[in-house]
C-alpha cells in the first residue's frame, strides 16, 4: 500500500549514508563541502518525511546553509594563507589545505582498529535502537493539554519559547559565547581578499536581498501558528548579511563594533529580562501572564531573530573588525 513511499525512504536513506561516507573520504576539500551540503539538504528532506518541517527548515538554513558557508569561508582562507606561503594554492579545487606541518599519516592498522571499534559501537546502538519502544511514550499529551495556555498555536514554538524557554535562552547564550570567542580568536580588518564576484552575482544580490528579508520576516511571524520561527527566520536574515559581506556592499569597520556588540547581546538580554520580570504576583521566572503571552513571545522572538541574524553573519565574517598596527599582531 505504502510501497512507493517505502522505496523512496530506502533510497533517500541509502543516499544519505552514501553521501556521509563520500564527504569523509573524498580527497578534495571543496568537493567534501559540496557533498556535505547535499547530505544536509537530503537529511532535511528526510525530516520532512518524518513530519518535522521546523527541524528540516532549521537544518537546511542553519545546519547546512550557514555551516556550509562557514566551511567554504575557512577553506578559502586556508588556501589564501597557503598561497601566501609560496605553496601551490589550490585553484579550481585541487589539493588539501596545505597545513604547515604535514600531518603524520596514521597507520592503516590504527585506522582499521578505530573503524572496527566504531563499527561495534554503531552496531550496539542499532541493537539498542531496535529494542526501544517505537512510537513510545512522549510529551504528546502534556503538550496538547498545555497548548491553550502557551499563548501560541504552533506546538514547536510553544515548546521553544514557553515550556522549555530556559533551554532556548541558554541556546542563545551559546551563540553569544561563540561570537565572543570568535572575536577573541581573530581580529583585523581583512587578510584574505574577498572572492571575486561577477556582475551577474551583484545583480542577483540586489534582486534577492529584499526577497530574503521578506521571507525571513515571514518565517518569524508565521512561527506562532505554523512551521517557522526565530531560528529559521534569523538564519534566512543572516543570509542577507552574508550576501552583503560577500559583495562587499557592507564592510565591517572598527567604528561599528559598538552597534554589533549591542546586536549580539540584544536577544539574550531581552529574553533574560522578560524571563526575570514576569516573576511577580505569584508567578515564577519564565511564566508569562496568559493575556500577554503572545505579545511577550513575539517580542522575544523578534529580538532573538535580530541577534541570531547579526551573530551568524558575524560568525561568518569571523573576526573582530579592529585596525591592527602595521606589522600584524598587536598583543598576544
Amino acid at each position, binding site marked *: 500500500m505504502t510501497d512507493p513511499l517505502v522505496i523512496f525512504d530506502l533510497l533517500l536513506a541509502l543516499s544519505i549514508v552514501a553521501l556521509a561516507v563520500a564527504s569523509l573520504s573524498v580527497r578534495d576539500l571543496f568537493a567534501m563541502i559540496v557533498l556535505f551540503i547535499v547530505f544536509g539538504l537530503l537529511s532535511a528532506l528526510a525530516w520532512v518525511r518524518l513530519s518535522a518541517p521546523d527541524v528540516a527548515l532549521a537544518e537546511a538554513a542553519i545546519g547546512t546553509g550557514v555551516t556550509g558557508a562557514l566551511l567554504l569561508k575557512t577553506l578559502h582562507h586556508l588556501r589564501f594563507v597557503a598561497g601566501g606561503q609560496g605553496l601551490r594554492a589550490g585553484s579550481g579545487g585541487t589539493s588539501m589545505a596545505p597545513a604547515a606541518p604535514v600531518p603524520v599519516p596514521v597507520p592503516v592498522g590504527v585506522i582499521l582498529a578505530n573503524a572496527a571499534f566504531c563499527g561495534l559501537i554503531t552496531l*550496539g*546502538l542499532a*541493537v*539498542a*535502537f531496535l*529494542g*526501544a*519502544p517505537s512510537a*513510545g*511514550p*512522549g*510529551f504528546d499529551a*502534556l*503538550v496538547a493539554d*498545555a497548548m491553550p495556555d502557551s499563548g501560541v498555536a504552533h506546538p514547536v514554538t510553544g515548546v521553544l519559547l*514557553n*515550556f*522549555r*524557554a*530556559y*533551554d532556548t535562552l*541558554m*541556546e542563545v*547564550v*551559546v551563540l*553569544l*559565547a*561563540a561570537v*565572543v*570567542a570568535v*572575536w*577573541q*580568536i581573530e*581580529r583585523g580588518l581583512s587578510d584574505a581578499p574577498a572572492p571575486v564576484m561577477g556582475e551577474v552575482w551583484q545583480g542577483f544580490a540586489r534582486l534577492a536581498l529584499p526577497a530574503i528579508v521578506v521571507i525571513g520576516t515571514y518565517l518569524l511571524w508565521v512561527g506562532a501558528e505554523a512551521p517557522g520561527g526565530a531560528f529559521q527566520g534569523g538564519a534566512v536574515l543572516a543570509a542577507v548579511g552574508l550576501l552583503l559581506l560577500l559583495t562587499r556592499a557592507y564592510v565591517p569597520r572598527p567604528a561599528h563594533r*559598538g552597534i554589533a*556588540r*549591542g546586536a*549580539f*547581546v540584544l536577544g*539574550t*538580554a531581552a529574553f*533574560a529580562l522578560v524571563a*526575570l*520580570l514576569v*516573576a*511577580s*504576583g*505569584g*508567578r*515564577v*521566572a*519564565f*511564566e*508569562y501572564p496568559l493575556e500577554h503571552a503572545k505579545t511577550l513571545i513575539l517580542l522575544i522572538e523578534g529580538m532573538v531573530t535580530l541577534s541570531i541574524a547579526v551573530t551568524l553573519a558575524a560568525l561568518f565574517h569571523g573576526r573582530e573588525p579592529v585596525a591592527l598596527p602595521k606589522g600584524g*599582531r*598587536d*598583543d*598576544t
Partner: protein
Amino acid sequence: MSVDISAMMLAIFLPLFGAIAAFLLPRAAALIGLVALALTTGAVIWLAREVWQSGAVILPLGGWGAPLGIDLRADGLSVAMLALTSAVGLLVSVSALDALKGAGQSRQRQYFWPLWLLLLTGINGVYLSTDIFNLYVMIEVIALAAVGLTVLSGTRAAVQAGLEYMYASILGALLFLMGVGFVYLQLGRLDFAGLMDAEPTGALIAAVALMFVGLALKTALFPLHFWLPAAHANATAPASALLSGLVVKAALYIVLRLAQYMPFPSEALLTLVGMMGAGAVIWGGIQALRAERLKLLVAWSTVAQIGLIFVAFARAGELGLTESWKAAALLILAHGVAKAAMFLAAGRIKDEIGHDVIRDLDRSPIRPTLAQFTFALAAISLIGLPPSLGFIGKWALMEGAMASGYWHWVVVTMVGTLMSVAYFSRVFAGFLRFDRVRAPVGEHQGWALADAAPLTLAFAAIGLGLMAAPILSFLEIGYPFGVAP
C-alpha cells in the same frame, strides 16, 4: 508590582547580565566582572541559607513543572558545588586583575571577563539543572567559554591546544546528546525524576554508556585525557586555574547526578570506572614525573587527581555507592580549591622568574617566596597530608574501600599518593636549593599583593579539612542518594 526573585535565578542570571555588560563596556570589564562575581557569591550564600534552613528547594521555570517544563533544584551537593565555584571564582578574579595588568594584555583583559562570566553562567546552570537536555546545552555554554579562555594568550601552542580541546569537547557533548536521544526513545521524558526507577533496558544501558563516555571525555578521565595537559598548561594562569579548578568539575558533577538517578551500573561497570581512574592515577603520575615545565606538571597532576575521584566513586562497589559519592564530593571540593591555588601560584612563579622550566627553577636570582609557599601549601592538600581537605577525602576513600574489602583501591590510592609526593618534590627541590646562584639580597623576594588570592585559596584547602564534618552534613541535605526521596 514587585518582582519575586529567587536565589537560584540570580546565581545563573547575575553572571549572565555581568557577561553582557562586560562585553558591551570593554573598558569597565574588570569592574563589572568583580561586581558580578561578588553579587553572585551573595546569591549563593542566600541560597545556601535557604537550603540549610528548609532543605532542598525547587523552582519550576515557567510554572509548568517537570516533565513538560524544566525545574531548577538546589540541594546540599549543588550548593556545595556552587559555593566552591563562587569562592574559587572570586579569588581567581581578584588575582586576574594583577595577572592581566600588563600593557600588552589589553585584549586579554577585555575578553577574559565576558568569557569567564559566561563560563560561570554555564557552570552554575549545571549545578542547578534537573533535566538532561538542559545539561547538554549547559555543557556547551561551558565548552565554548572554556575554549575561549584557553586560547586567550593567543600563542600558537595555546591555539593548537584549544583546537584539540574544542574537538574533544564537541565530541563529548554529541555523545551525551545521543545518550539523551536514547533516554527519550525509551522513557519519553528527560527530567531526573523520570529517570528514577526505570528498568535498565538496552536503550537505557546504551544511553548511560554514551553519556558516561561523553562526560569522561569532558572531564578528561584516562584514557580520554589527551587534550587536557596541553590545554591547561598553555592557558594564562587565571584561565588555567578556572579550567582545572572548576570546569572539569562540572562534568564530574553530572556523572555523580546520573549515578544517583539513572538505573545504574552493575558492579562490573563500576569496576571499569575505578580501573580507568586507577589508570589515570598511574599514568598522570608518570607524566607529571617526566614533565619539564611547572604548569605541565600541575596539569598532569590534574589528570591523576581526577582519576582518584573516580576511584573514590568506585571504592566500595554498587552497594557502597550511598557513601562513596561523599568521598568523591569531598575530593572534588578539595581538588577545586587546591588546584586553583596551585595554578595561580605556578603562574606567579612563572611571571616573576620569567620561565617555568622545573630544572632551572633554582638558577633564578629572583625567589618568589610567597608564591612558592602557596604552591607548597596547595601541594600538601593535593598529596593528602592532614589536616587538609584532601586528606579527609582520601581517608574517606580508603576507609570505605577497606570496610568493604576492596583492598586494591587502597593500594591504588597509596601508589598515587607516593607518586604525588615524588613529583611535587621535584618542584620543592627547585624551590629550596639556594646554593646555585647567590643573588643580591634585595632581589631575593619578588612577591606582591597578587599572591594574596592564591595564598587564601591554599590556606582554605588546608583549613577546610578541619570543617569536614559540617561540610559532610551539608552535602547530605536533600540528597536522597540510595534513599527513597
